[in-house]
């Protein structure tokens, strides 16, 4: 299937990209470095290692996703490799989705590397008892980045990589402020226009904040109700939202002059 061929190719190329590998190495180093915080009780140390580790994975993952996403299609156009591909029996949407899934695979591989180092570090500090529950946090990060990469992809059809970087980063930041946008959309002391504006922002901008589930993983004694439901809702949210964005990207790309 042509989509698979393009996806595999995208993965192979991305894994060789120097800058992405640098992000990965830095992340791995930081996770390991978290271990050097000594002079705490074991519980405190574990808490810090876990929060650091998840934080590093989230940030590094975000950078890798944005760097990948903004360049995914523009690079092929700039280097003219896209012409040799689209002149073959490859439908435009097959090309686009192939690139997208290749990028996703890259993100997954990077996350997996970081997750392994993270789990081993935590286990080492925990008398070699692995905390598999931490993978839930990585799972949420993955779906968050799945959604983020589709944002970057859709913007890349319309703008240059530099503008796109800031646009996508901006969407990420606004999407992380879900609590703020939600509270601003309520309240008797605000005008309907302001409330309406924040209502739109809250529900239409992808809510990346939904996916930050670190706290109960860092503090396993916390009591969470309906955890499975929450995870399921988030995964479905990511898939549906990304689908909408991918449809927009496909439609825009379909009639674009190359």
């Amino acid at each position: 299937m042509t989509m698979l061929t393009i996806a595999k190719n995208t993965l192979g190329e991305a894994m060789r990209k120097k800058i992405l590998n640098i992000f990965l190495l830095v992340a791995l180093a930081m996770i390991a470095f978290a271990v050097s915080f000594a002079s705490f009780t074991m519980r405190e140390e574990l808490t810090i290692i876990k929060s650091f580790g998840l934080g590093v994975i989230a940030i590094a993952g975000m950078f890798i996703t944005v760097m990948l996403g903004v360049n995914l299609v523009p690079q092929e156009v700039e280097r003219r490799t896209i012409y040799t591909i689209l002149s073959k029996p490859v439908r435009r949407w097959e090309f686009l989705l192939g690139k997208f899934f290749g990028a996703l695979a890259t993100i997954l591989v990077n996350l997996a590397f970081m997750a392994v180092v993270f789990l081993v570090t935590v286990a080492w500090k925990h008398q070699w008892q692995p905390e598999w529950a931490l993978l839930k946090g990585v799972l949420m990060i993955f779906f968050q980045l799945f959604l983020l990469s589709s944002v970057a992809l859709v913007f890349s059809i319309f703008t240059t990589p530099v503008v796109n970087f800031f646009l996508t980063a901006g969407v990420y930041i606004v999407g992380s402020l879900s609590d703020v946008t939600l509270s601003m959309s309520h309240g008797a002391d605000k005008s309907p226009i302001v409330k309406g504006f924040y209502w739109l922002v809250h529900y239409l901008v992808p809510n990346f904040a939904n996916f930050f589930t670190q706290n109960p993983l860092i503090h396993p004694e916390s009591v969470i109700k309906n955890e499975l439901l929450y995870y399921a809702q988030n995964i479905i949210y990511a898939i549906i939202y990304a689908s909408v964005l991918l449809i927009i990207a496909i439609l825009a790309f379909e009639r674009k002059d190359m």
Partner: protein
Amino acid sequence: MAIAVKTEHLTKTFQHIMHKEPVNAVSDLSIEVQEGEIFGFLGPNGAGKTTTIKILLGLVYPTSGQAWILDKPAGDIETKRQISYLPETPYFYDYMSGIEVLDFYASLFGIDGAKKRSRIEELLKIVGLYQDRHKRLSQYSKGMLQRIGIAQALVNDPKLLILDEPTTGLDPIAHSEIRDLILKLRDEGKTVFLSSHQLSDVEMVCNRVAILNRGTLIKTGSLDELLLAGQFKIEAENLDKAMIEKLKEVSTYIDSKSNVVIIEVADGEKVNAVIDMIRPTGGRIISILPQRRSLEDLFVEIIREVNKK
């Protein structure tokens, strides 16, 4: 004869947000390419050649007019199985080796398994890159890159090849190898659409050409038609001075230094006039040869003329 490529009143206008004036990249272009011929597509930079090719490949959508490839509308997916494209100074994924690149493109055609492996081997040998097949493309010279480009254009054994400047940056030997390859393709019954600046190449291999300038078609026709547009060279002897003087009036050039006089005339009518003048006086016509202009001369003349307007 079946038609491989056809355009009818093809027009493409680009409207950039930044520029106030819309750019007419291609205006009212109507051309035809017969199956089995090598068609030359010429024009200075910015003439609209690349845009036309992109429209043919479905990479760009025309503003008006239509284009067909192998009787199907341009951009049709299934048709792309039977055509191929070599872009100008192509770039490929340079982390891949020669064999990996061809593997990638072959997969896009759905060719796989043993058939893919043997086809790739065959292609590498045809373009002379078999011994370099495991080297990364980042280590290939320009000529080698061009050759791998040709290989990927042959992967699907296409009926129609669209080649954009296939000999740019090649040394003379590689140059002539490409020319031979193109001729061989024609012998195999393939159609070649060749867009090139290398007028000597075009002159050597093409059957018909189209000349574009600023998006408009200036001239099209077979090379013989265009280049043999009129001039003749007549060699005659036994001419006396009076005759030579008379002949100066109807000729564009006379060389009477030796016994054999060379007379150049502008068109076929003048040939007849010269013959009628020489024969009655006992002069002997040795030869009448149609003068073939070089394509370069024709090209330069046409472009100059158009730019004057």
